[in-house]
């Protein structure tokens, strides 16, 4: 079983559209498992029409609670907290539920035993069935911490299912950025497909995500989306791929068919003759070689 993670650094370059289209092509000939690792804005479900089979609560960590009856107002918790999450109002102490990282430093120092650590349910994760194969996805409640931990939960569940089903390919739709959730999505993948956009920001962000995948020892390949919007920048990405010795697998043209199929909640491959679908078929042929 191979694990392919699709990343981009910059948001909105077309990761999910590319994943949906690759999944649509791959599902006709392989056993496929899908995972949406962009847990704070999960979109893959929109184009693969899943039916949720199991829903699980996600406990991301703990949060401190101060019992006002036991609190003596000594203020040691506020002195100890490095996240400015202990609020004081006229000698009364409480916890800023958003700021609290759940480290429990206050719990251990409170001399009155007035602080308890409580589990924080910060989202849900799902096992679904879709026409393209099983989908593992999640929903982090807005504003919650620990999206990296939820990404790991989604990936581990998807890997276990892929193992049980003797799947050929685990396809992971990654989050934007290069921080905690992107690192969590990258770990253990066989290949990272980086979807780049031909713009100054696209090039800048591609450099950073490429450095990140390298840092964690995951081989990378690149495809350029909306490549004809700016041929000069596309050429710059080509040069960068050559000098970094990273394969450039495809150039996908800007194509209204992508949005038109998205509005119908379908991958662009459902318009097989559209320029974008043709380019993604070429991309899939390249990826298939890598899978063998």
């Amino acid at each position, binding site marked *: 079983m191979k694990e392919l993670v699709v990343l981009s*650094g*910059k*948001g*909105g*370059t077309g990761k*999910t559209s590319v994943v949906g289209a690759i999944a649509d092509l791959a599902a006709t000939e392989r056993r496929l498992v899908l995972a949406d690792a*962009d*847990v*704070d*804005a999960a*979109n893959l479900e*929109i184009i693969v029409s899943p039916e949720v089979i199991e829903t699980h609560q996600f406990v991301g960590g*703990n949060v401190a609670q101060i019992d006002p009856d036991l609190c003596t107002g000594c203020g040691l918790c506020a002195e*100890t907290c*490095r*996240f400015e999450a202990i609020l004081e109002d006229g000698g009364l102490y409480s916890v800023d539920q*958003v700021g609290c*990282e*759940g*480290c*429990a*430093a206050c719990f*251990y*120092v409170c001399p009155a035993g007035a602080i308890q650590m409580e589990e924080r349910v910060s989202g849900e994760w799902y096992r679904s069935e879709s026409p393209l194969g099983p989908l593992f996805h999640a929903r*982090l409640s*807005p*504003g*919650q*911490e*620990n*999206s*990296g931990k939820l990404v790991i939960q989604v990936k581990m569940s998807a890997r276990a299912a892929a193992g049980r089903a003797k799947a050929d390919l685990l396809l992971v739709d990654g989050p*934007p*950025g*290069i*921080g*905690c*959730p*992107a*690192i969590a999505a990258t770990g253990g993948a066989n290949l990272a497909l980086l979807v780049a*956009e031909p*713009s*100054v*920001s*696209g090039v*800048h*962000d591609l450099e*950073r995500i490429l*450095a*990140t995948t390298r*840092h964690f020892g995951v081989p990378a390949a690149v495809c350029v989306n909306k490549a004809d*919007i*700016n041929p*000069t*920048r596309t050429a710059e990405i080509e040069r960068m791929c050559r000098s970094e010795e990273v394969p450039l697998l495809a150039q996908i043209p800007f194509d*209204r068919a992508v*949005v038109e199929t*998205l*509005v119908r*909640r379908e991958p662009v491959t459902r318009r097989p003759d559209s320029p974008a679908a043709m380019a993604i078929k070429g991309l899939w042929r390249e990826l298939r070689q890598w899978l063998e």
Partner: protein
Amino acid sequence: MIVTVASGKGGTGKTLVATGLAAVLAREEGADVHLVDCDVEEPNAHLFLEPRFDHSEEVTIPVPRVDLDLCDFCGRCAKVCAFHALAVLPDRVMIFPEMCHGCGSCTLQCPQGAISEEPKTLGRIEWGRAGGLSFAQGVLEVGQALATPLIRRLKARVIPDDPGATVILDAPPGNACSAVETVKGSHFALLVTEPTPFGLHDLKLAVELARDALGLPVGVVINRDGLGDAGVEDYCAAVGVPVLARLPYDRRIAEAYSDGRLWVEALPEYQGLVLDIARSIRERVGVKP
């Protein structure tokens, strides 16, 4: 007045709107404008504004270091660590700095006083001027996971006390902790979206976060208006979220943006639309220009 430009989904045009607003207000209106790029994982606003930085500061968190001459391998540090950043074996202590949040609990709880702290670099913050405006950004180091401490420090350093200043925060995508760290303390959240099912799905989450969880006034900018469908418009009307502007799908904007040109200068016909967004926000926040 502090305005955060946010969006659930990435690539909807946050930086486009933030740089456009900042440039038009500073250059056309002569306002005291501070643009702060809080998307520390992938900061891009500098590419359009070419700032000159005259200050730069490393941002670190304290991570533990164990003095093995004092340590008796009791395991208390590993027990109190909520982030599994330490493991104690019979004859050594393993430290995983990439897991550490720098809370200090292990240091405080070690009965032998064997733990001290050393700084670990997360990234840097830098600030200076870009044309007529103040500009600042944070840059997360490649391989580092924790974006929020960088954003926290950046905001504390560069947001001026003067309530007359206009502060524009360019937020990271998503709805998790780094987006919250950026938007909290703002007077208004300007949510940029695109008229597609992806844009709508993520806009709902952003409204849930900014308006419902944090209680901020919000307004929407629909970017690439004309592509896609009416789902975003229908949703905004149904839940009473005002649409402050519709930025048409115009390939010239995409081309200027892709070349790193400031779109409101390349296409000055859009300056009026941007000023209308600013006016509309001021009205809603109750700030006189």
